[in-house]
């Protein structure tokens, strides 16, 4: 999994490429945690994400909880296969997905 971060006007965009699974999710969690203070809004670009397990969902839920107290969080470019997982788990209703 590759993580690429860019920040503009306090909006942090995190482009993720690859699989978010038990072995890679901690790296994403650490990367987000170290950036919370530097942004007011978080955009997760899922264009390159082709797999997510519950380990990845846990990271998204944590991030959503943190960012809901700030400027918010949204996911963009989510594939239909990943969207199906969000649908089944109810994440479609608690995340902002564009």
């Amino acid at each position, binding site marked *: 999994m590759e993580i690429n971060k860019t920040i503009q006007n306090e909006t942090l965009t995190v482009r993720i490429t690859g699989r978010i699974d038990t072995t890679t999710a901690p790296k994403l969690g650490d990367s987000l945690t170290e950036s919370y203070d530097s942004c007011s809004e978080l955009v997760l670009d899922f264009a390159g994400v082709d*797999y997510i397990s519950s380990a990845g969902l846990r990271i998204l839920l944590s991030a959503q909880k943190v960012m809901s107290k700030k400027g918010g969080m949204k996911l963009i470019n989510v594939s239909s296969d990943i969207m199906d997982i969000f649908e089944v*788990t109810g994440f479609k209703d608690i995340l902002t997905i564009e």
Partner: protein
Amino acid sequence: MKEFETQALTDNLPDVLAFVDQQLEEVGCPMKIQMQIDVAVEEIFVNIAHYAYDNGTGKAVVRVEIHDDPLCADITLIDNGVPFDPLAKADPDITLAANERKIGGLGIFMVKKSMDDVIYEYVNGHNMLTIKKGLAKK
């Protein structure tokens, strides 16, 4: 039927999934179904790695059986750790708002929702969790 045996450690997850994917690719499993099966196998294998063995780690076996007509896969994960039926656990409430949702508890729920059938058995000191999934394009 093919089997893969490894230590029940999360570090071995890529090897487990590579074994499963190899069997699925040989029969032309659609990518979406392969991802669903991979997620299910990951959730079960990681559960074994985290909880099956009180004293450190032990073995895990992954057994893949492909059936024809209709094309489907039976995948069984086996450990000889403490008896544990993950299907007995109540499903998480997925209607709660983000701030009320608990972190975790989603893994086995995802397995139940994405597979055609999930069966737990405890046989001769072994936990055996079998997932069944049709492999034909819908």
